């Protein structure tokens, strides 16, 4: 199976409270925050790797994983980390985040899919910086492929994927014919979430994403990483979404202490007007 995994580099999500907005409101300032791969994309890579191996040691790879990112030269680090973790090839589309929106990324990805012809695109459900949650859906639409979003489990079948998705009160399972677009949620990295047809259903993965062994890190330098121009992928490079201004959410007002339940009810009725 050949899988394309789009990856995004984001400002350290664990320190999102350090994000600043300058008085001009023209942008969100993330200086000083360490760049990290988007966690959902790391889960997508893990799922893709599991789908292209047999689960045994030493692992036998059965397929190819291509990672692609949109960003400046510094993003090569993110790609090389993915190569060290097990991806086979990498593509970086040279651009910067402020020149993109979800639609443009989806159109550019479509062009890459047209060239690479993967069996499936596995991607994070959303990037934790913009939290837009659009690209997978848009891409499936542009490709006219079936889509399964927020996957918690993926089991490969012949020519199809059985995708489990958590919903209120249970799990729905969809069968998507390949080729398809799948976006993943965090449960996808649980020990029994993903199986390729080559992996015994009794096999249990380590919980979470795998990390690169040192020899693989050194060897990753020899794996191919190509750079493309955005304009080579799509003639129309203008984003559709234009941001006019950024504004921090208003600071929360301090709470008050109520005397007793009767007082609470009074406040809820008169002030909050929820009763």
């Amino acid at each position, binding site marked *: 199976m050949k899988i394309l995994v789009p990856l995004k580099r984001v400002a350290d999500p664990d320190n999102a409270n350090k994000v600043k907005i300058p008085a001009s409101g023209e942008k969100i300032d993330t200086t000083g925050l360490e760049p990290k791969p988007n966690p959902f994309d790391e889960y997508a890579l893990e799922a893709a790797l599991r789908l292209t191996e047999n689960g045994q040691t030493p692992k036998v790879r059965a397929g190819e994983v291509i990672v692609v990112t949109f960003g400046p030269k510094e993003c090569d680090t993110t790609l090389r980390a993915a190569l060290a973790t097990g991806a086979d090839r990498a593509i970086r589309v040279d651009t910067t985040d402020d020149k993109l929106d979800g639609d443009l990324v989806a159109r550019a990805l479509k062009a890459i899919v047209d060239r690479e012809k993967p069996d499936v695109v596995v991607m994070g459900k959303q990037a934790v910086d913009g939290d837009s949650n659009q690209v997978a859906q848009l891409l499936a639409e542009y490709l006219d492929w079936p889509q399964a979003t927020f996957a918690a489990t993926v089991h490969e079948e012949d020519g199809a994927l059985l995708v489990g998705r958590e919903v209120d009160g249970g799990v729905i399972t969809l069968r998507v014919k390949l080729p398809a677009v799948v976006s993943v949620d965090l449960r996808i990295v649980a020990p029994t979430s993903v199986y390729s047809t080559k992996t015994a259903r009794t096999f249990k993965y*380590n919980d979470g994403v795998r990390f690169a062994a040192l020899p693989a*890190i050194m060897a990753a*330098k020899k794996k191919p990483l190509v750079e493309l121009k955005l304009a080579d992928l799509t003639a129309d490079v203008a984003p559709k979404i234009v941001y006019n201004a950024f504004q921090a959410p208003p600071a929360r007002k301090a709470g008050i202490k109520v005397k007793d339940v009767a007082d609470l009810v009074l406040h809820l009725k008169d002030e909050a007007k929820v009763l």
Partner: protein
Amino acid sequence: MPPVIEQSFMKALFHGVISEDMIFPFPEMPAEDRENVSMILDSVRKFCAASVDSAKIDREHEIPAEVLEGLKGLGLFGLQIPTDFDGIGLSSTAYARVMQEVASVDTSIAVTLGAHQSIGLKAILLFGTPEQKRKYLPKLATGEHVAAFALTEPAAGSDAAAIKTRAELSPDGTHYVINGSKIWITNGGFADVFTVFARTSSVEEGQKPKITAFIVEREWGVKSGPSEHKLGIRGTSTTELFFDDVKVPVENVIGEVGKGFKVAMEVLNNGRLGLASGSLGLARTLMKLAIERVQERRAFGRSIGEFGLIKDKIARMLAQMFALESMTYLTTGMIDQKVADYSVESAICKVMGSEVVWEVVNETLQIAAGIGYMSDYPYERMLRDARINLIFEGTNEILRAFIALTGLQGPGKALVEVSKALREPIKGFGLLSDFAVRRAKTVLGRERMSRAHPLLSHEVVIFEDMTGELANYVDSTLRKHGRRIAEMQFAQRRVAEMAMDLYALAACISRTTRAIERRGEEGAKREIDLTRVFGGLAHRRMATIVSEFARNDDELRKSVASRAYTDGAYPFDIL
């Protein structure tokens, strides 16, 4: 360009010469290495977060087998072994940085990995023949085999030349037969390959023994005693080793027969840097705990971090850590630039590292106070773990003597040559004039450090002045006492401690200069401030030592100690 008098920055400094080209610009990891090392650290962090429970390792006196397997699987057993032999091929700087990370998580694991590759297999790496490397390194790189370094014996700790373990050549000259025992060998319980030091000359009173290094496989009959119970690093395996007619083929001699002592010293010179960076790693973890604690814990209506005495502790710790980090990575950078002589520098890093982490763990425990003392918290374990660093790989006393005496050797030789030259003034003219110029420079004016950033001029003056003081003291002491200096340990301590502070300060200045050049004054504020705090601390320590050059109570202290040996105990009681 002045003539190069020593291949080492510190050795030159003992002559009063500041070889600034050796420390400017502050070395930097190549971009590619930096990227690799960040990825390696990322893997190490993720692995440790998922699999390492230091409290459990301490409690159960063992690193679980799965954890060791995991570390091997990651490739952490072959960090500096070249890729040709299936290792990772890291530079000295990258190696030290990875060991720093490991030690920041768990000292037992760091010491186990260090005993394996900082010292255990280092002799093969540095002195092994191509055949020895081919035979042993690949399995050591993957951790299929684990190595240990076996030098210490019951009657030979600091005085390593006193070892009694013998290696006798078989009559047919094909192998050696080793008999004897070793003590306190890290990884002794499970190592497969040992670097063993044994004497290859007969024991004769007053005769310097010939020592030879061997690669010995466990399979050839090496037996281990039970694991020792210890204060700290309880997850490491520390055992005795017994050699009872163990046959070792002659091909397994490392380096030359009779040159084993040099092998041991080179291995330790190199290994000490892993210990220095490991100390830094532990100190960083403690600093994080300290900073969290002082902001969280409240007393007298404030967080304790608001109090001056607490702030003073934090600032001192930060400054000493900055100095330690700067000198350690200055030294590894020199090694990576193929500077061959770094024995004084690495000994300084080991002493400084172990003493800084000891101060940091002690002060952090003090800040944590009650919870610091409780076994439910990590502080007391870290205190116990940190203590070993002052003892092994050369005790800090031995290393102080080593720093002083090694540093004094150069000026000592120069003086001997000068006195010879003075007797034969014509022949020795060149030498004499070089020496005269150098002396004139250090006596009349200071030797200068010109490449430092002007914002650090105050620290540079401290460095230059104190370098002059050190060189003058070295010169006058050598003239007055000559070889007797070897017995003068009070003087050696002063010389060594000045050398340590001078090296630390030089490293801070070089590193901060680079930071200012890159990021400007505002951007390098943290580095500048810490260099200033460290400069102040070092200046006061060195000024005290300089005052002791002129006036001290060394003789009084010696006689007090000697009398106590006769008294046999503390001589007073108020009854």
